[in-house]
């Protein structure tokens, strides 16, 4: 019964979303504020209804109600409770429900936001957001209903793909979805601005926190997905340039560009049309990602089921929203008042370069991901575009961007001074070069990429900290003056310094992968495998039984520099509940931020076992860096100017040096 009510709640949510989509626009047209504000309670109700529906589905999973088709197909009564719960979104229908739930959550948050959004903007945004919700609710109700019943109910379920029976499923998809869907709000803001025909710094300030939220979650979601693939697939790789990964990387690149371009718009009232376009493109790329993953065009662990009618439906949604918004953009954008031009050498000029490189990098990923599909559609030839392509296109665009980043970060608004900036950064440049030379000398004969990359990372970190330090200490003297400057510096200054330092940390982690080693051997108990300072000794191989699997465990002793450093267990699992599907659970042991990674291969007839041993120096920095980036973003959101989204006050007379006015005196960002 509960399940039927939940199904009904979905339909109700669809009806209310239609109200949220139509009424506010009508109200704005008629200048009827009461009518325009109908979107707010509607958005909140849609969220509550969808939360209820999602809760019911999760409950059905928790109690293993196999009369629900979705549960029967994707769960099993012997599965541990945590995987029953996370299995709610480990399938197509459930994950789409999570998608609209998060979309409704963002709608409700916009409706509830304390910030004084202009009424027209809020109404338009909620309506645009609702249009996306309507499309996805229709999609769920007509092609992917999670509440279909089975009669008679099967006695036991099919179980979940064992690769998904992991804590990663609890973390990665929700984070990623909040990121993907979060950009629907910036999209909705852009549509509202286009319809309204007005866009200014208030718009930029209203949009920026939402962009940051979406960006933070997307950053964390991608990073956790990467870590999950790293430990679960047993191949020791952290990024495969798989089309599904690229599908999440593209909105991230566009979103990163968007965060930076809204700064220019907010501070300098410029780059408006580009920012609007970027907001549209970012969410379009999110939609494209959903299409690629959900339609069965690509095959991967993310594609739970392939059903042509679903693919077609999502393709229609895709064309409607991307095509529609771009058409609206082409029609309305020329009416937006353009901001002024500015000097190429300046903070805003640097941010344009940032956008340029990010957009170009995004375009290369786009081509590399879609070209094979297009080629196959047109000529039937099947090609694969793999890491060599992306290494040859993406990296050459990313490296200059990273090299220029610190310069942009410490350049002044309006009129920068390249030489002066270089002088300010002299210390950071020196530290970076010293790090490169030092590491190169100590690892002489090793790969050259590692010291160069680490030098770049060190340069990024030290310049971010140096720049922050200079802003705090500056010309101030005495502890009190420094303290007051430190307190007075906007949080977003700390946020951006932290985020940029996080980029540096990730770069170091990536560069260090050049030192990673991989060894393969067939081992018997007692055998030893050595690489450099690390050695493992296979102690025993034994079978073990888990709740819904059998596994063969290899226990190894790790020795570093001849000293015992504990045990590692690698297993090969066979899921009895799932056609005897096998998975490899790698044994990973962490030393500081470096890891030793051991995975089992095939068992030979004579009882020996294939073993891969990887050493991964500094590997964890890749993900730690992305956590720091996310933290930096979070710190930026707490900046006080986002709490009250009113136009910045005119400059206070006792502001710092400079007298040219402008919307904000702060050099920070």
């Amino acid at each position: 019964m509960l399940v039927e009510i939940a199904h009904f709640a979905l339909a109700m949510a669809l009806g209310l979303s239609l109200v949220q989509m139509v009424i506010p626009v009508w109200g704005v047209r008629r200048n009827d504020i009461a009518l325009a504000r109908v979107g707010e309670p509607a958005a909140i109700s849609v969220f509550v209804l969808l939360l209820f529906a999602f809760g019911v589905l999760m409950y059905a999973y928790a109690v293993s109600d196999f009369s629900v088709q979705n549960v029967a197909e994707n769960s099993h009564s012997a599965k541990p409770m945590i995987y029953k719960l996370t299995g709610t979104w480990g399938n197509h229908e459930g994950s789409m429900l999570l998608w609209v739930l998060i979309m409704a959550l963002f709608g409700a948050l916009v409706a509830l936001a304390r910030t004084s959004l202009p009424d027209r903007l809020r109404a338009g945004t909620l309506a645009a957001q609702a249009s996306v919700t309507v499309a996805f609710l229709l999609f769920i109700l007509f092609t992917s209903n999670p509440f279909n019943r089975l009669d008679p109910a099967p006695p036991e379920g099919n179980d979940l793909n064992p690769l998904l029976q992991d804590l990663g499923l609890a973390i990665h998809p929700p984070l990623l979805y909040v990121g993907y869907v979060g950009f629907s709000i910036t999209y909705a803001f852009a549509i509202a601005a286009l319809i309204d025909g007005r866009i200014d710094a208030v718009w930029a300030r209203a949009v920026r926190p939402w962009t940051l939220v979406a960006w933070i979650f997307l950053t964390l979601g991608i990073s956790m997905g990467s870590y999950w693939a790293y430990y679960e697939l047993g191949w020791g790789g952290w990024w495969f340039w798989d089309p599904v990964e690229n599908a999440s990387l593209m909105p991230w690149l566009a979103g990163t560009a968007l965060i930076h371009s809204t700064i220019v718009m907010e501070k300098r009232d410029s780059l408006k049309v580009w920012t609007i376009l970027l907001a549209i493109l970012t969410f379009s790329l999110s939609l494209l990602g959903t299409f690629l993953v959900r339609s069965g065009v690509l095959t991967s662990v993310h594609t739970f089921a392939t059903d042509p009618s679903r693919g077609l439906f999502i393709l229609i949604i895709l064309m409607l929203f991307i095509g529609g918004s771009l058409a609206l953009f082409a029609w309305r954008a020329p009416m937006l008042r353009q901001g002024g031009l500015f000097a190429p050498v300046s903070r805003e000029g640097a941010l344009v370069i940032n956008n340029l490189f990010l957009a170009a990098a995004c375009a290369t990923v786009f081509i590399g991901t879609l070209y094979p599909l297009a080629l196959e559609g047109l000529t039937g030839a099947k090609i694969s575009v793999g890491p060599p392509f992306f290494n040859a296109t993406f990296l050459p665009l990313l490296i200059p961007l990273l090299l220029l980043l610190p310069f942009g970060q410490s350049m002044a608004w309006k009129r920068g001074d390249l030489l002066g900036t270089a002088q300010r950064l002299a210390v950071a440049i020196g530290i970076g070069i010293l790090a490169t030379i030092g590491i190169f000398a100590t690892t002489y004969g090793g790969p050259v990429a590692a010291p160069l990359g680490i030098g770049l990372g060190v340069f990024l970190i030290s310049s971010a900290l140096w720049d922050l330090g200079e802003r705090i200490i500056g010309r101030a003297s005495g502890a009190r003056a420094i303290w007051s400057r430190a307190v007075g510096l906007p949080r977003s200054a700390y946020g951006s310094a932290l985020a940029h330092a996080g980029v540096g940390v990730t770069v170091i982690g990536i560069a260090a992968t050049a030192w990673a080693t991989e060894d393969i051997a067939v081992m018997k108990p007692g055998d030893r495998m050595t690489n450099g300072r690390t050695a493992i000794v296979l102690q025993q191989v034994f079978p073990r039984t888990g709740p819904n699997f059998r596994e063969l465990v290899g226990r190894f002793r790790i020795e570093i520099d001849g000293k015992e450093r504990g045990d590692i267990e690698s297993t090969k699992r066979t899921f009895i509940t799932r056609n005897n599907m096998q998975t490899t659970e790698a044994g990973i042991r962490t030393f500081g931020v470096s890891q030793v990674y051991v995975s089992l291969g095939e068992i030979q007839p004579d009882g020996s076992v294939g073993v891969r041993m990887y050493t991964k120096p500094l590997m964890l920095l890749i993900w730690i860096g992305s956590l720091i980036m996310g933290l930096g973003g979070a710190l930026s959101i707490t900046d006080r100017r986002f709490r009250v989204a009113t136009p910045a006050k005119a400059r206070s007379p006792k502001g710092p040096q400079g007298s040219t006015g402008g919307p904000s005196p702060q050099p920070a960002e």
Partner: protein
Amino acid sequence: MTRKQRRLAIIGSCGLVLAVAAGLVLFAMRDSIVFFHGPTDVVEKSIQAGTRFRLGGLVKEGSVVRQGQTVTFEVTDMNRNIPVTYTGILPDLFREGQGVVTEGVLQAGGLFKADSVLARHDENYMPREVADSLKKQGHWQPPGSKPQS
């Protein structure tokens, strides 16, 4: 700088970066793209030795021979077979009679020397290229006894 010069500088730098990006893409397209072929393609299109490509099909029943870390097997589309050799640990779901995609270089004697055998994610999953190539040969059967939708 005058207004005109500023505009030129900005447009010029945009053009430069985009041109570099386009150049990189074209360059990489020429060198780093790998084609996919089924066994019948390999024989009929008489692909030259030394060519790098992805070979996909079914692992022929009874063809897998292991010698230490080296495995030889045949990839078939029920029409033609191509012998493959691979050194390393095979993915979990490598089995006789199941679909497989390998990437490597065709040797002079017709042996395909693979340097990677692609991991699959699910026991029902059939690489799409393999499914298509089997369909072309008329040997396609919908995968698995438990369709997921």
